[in-house]
């Protein structure tokens, strides 16, 4: 359902203001979305004044600096810090991206950090991605073959067929694209969203997979696939530079021509 306004319990309030104590001349104001499940209050925006002379170059460095030096209760997901794991996906300066590879020098003025859009918030910058993972499971993201596992020969793939997966296998499932998509906001329960559809395409395209027709048939659905209206927020936000819009377009074309 399309609901433009946030529900009553999600309205954002003004939170605390943490003044700089280091007397630094190079200060950046960082506004961070906070919600504590144990407080029973509405979410709020806390403002932190961060000394940029002693801070690393990425947004994740700022978040760590806040957590280490100002407020240890700040909660966010992170793991590799090199843009490989996809854990620190969040909305930075209005666009979804990975905090670990987004340079804060690219952002003029105050820095705004929110969780990924239109998700149930677990705490602070952590959104609940259960639905997305279920949808991912529904497209069977594994190789389906008629082989029993007893065969001695490998399942081989030519270099050319392998190249067909370029631009798709690199997806790290950070959910930046899906949560940037207005169609996914309004129909997230039924529409699969760019991340899952890109994955679906990746398996449809795999020359080793023996279930291409079934896969196409399963995804060919008014709600699952055709809620994509090529808004292209997904491609605009992908931190790995992939193109989910093109993957979805390719599925639509396959269905139209098969």
């Amino acid at each position, binding site marked *: 359902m399309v609901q433009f306004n946030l529900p009553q319990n999600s309205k954002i309030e003004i939170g605390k203001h943490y003044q700089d104590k280091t007397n630094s001349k190079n200060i950046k104001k960082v506004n961070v979305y906070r919600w504590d499940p144990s407080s029973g209050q509405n979410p709020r925006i806390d403002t932190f004044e961060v000394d940029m002379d002693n801070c690393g170059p990425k947004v994740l460095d700022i978040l760590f600096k806040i957590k280490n030096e100002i407020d240890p209760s700040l909660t966010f997901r992170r793991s590799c810090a090199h843009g490989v794991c996809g854990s620190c996906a969040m909305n930075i300066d209005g666009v979804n991206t990975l905090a670990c590879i987004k340079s804060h020098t690219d952002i003029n003025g105050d820095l705004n950090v929110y969780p990924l*859009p239109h998700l149930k918030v677990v705490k602070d910058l952590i959104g609940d991605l259960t639905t997305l993972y279920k949808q991912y499971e529904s497209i069977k993201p594994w190789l389906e073959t008629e082989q029993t596992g007893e065969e001695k020969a490998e399942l081989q793939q030519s270099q050319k067929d392998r190249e067909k997966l370029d631009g798709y296998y690199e997806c790290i499932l950070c959910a930046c694209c899906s949560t940037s998509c207005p169609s996914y906001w309004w129909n997230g329960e039924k529409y699969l969203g760019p991340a899952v559809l890109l994955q679906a395409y990746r398996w449809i395209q795999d020359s080793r997979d023996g279930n291409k027709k079934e896969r196409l048939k399963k995804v060919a659905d008014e709600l699952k696939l055709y809620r994509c209206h090529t808004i292209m927020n997904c491609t605009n936000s992908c931190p790995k530079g992939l193109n989910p819009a093109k993957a979805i377009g390719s599925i639509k074309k396959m269905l139209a021509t098969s």
Partner: protein
Amino acid sequence: MQDKNNPLSPHLQIYKWQISSLLSITHRIVGVINILAITLICFLSLSLLLGAESYEIIHSFFKSFFGKFIIVGLCWTFSFHILNELRHLLWDLGYGFDLKVAKITGVIALLGSFILTILFYLIGKNIF
């Protein structure tokens, strides 16, 4: 994690508009306006069957500033919808998904719609 008390993270409120998303929503709104406009034009043409009097009413309406504004506005909505629909057709054929290409075609569609509007207006002005 299906606790109803958990808040929903902000979406429209905070997400930065991209050229592509702005054109997409404009395409939708303009599409609705066009459908209404076509219906209205049909009714206007029908009303001409009632005789010269109704023609006079319509004529004087379109001569007024408000009427002219609506005509120029509709010239733009139709121009924009046609040009942006061409982008959609291109996408359906599998082309133009590259981020740069999509941005360029978007800007072309927008600028083109204004140019078409001016052309329509100038041509129409000489006819009527």
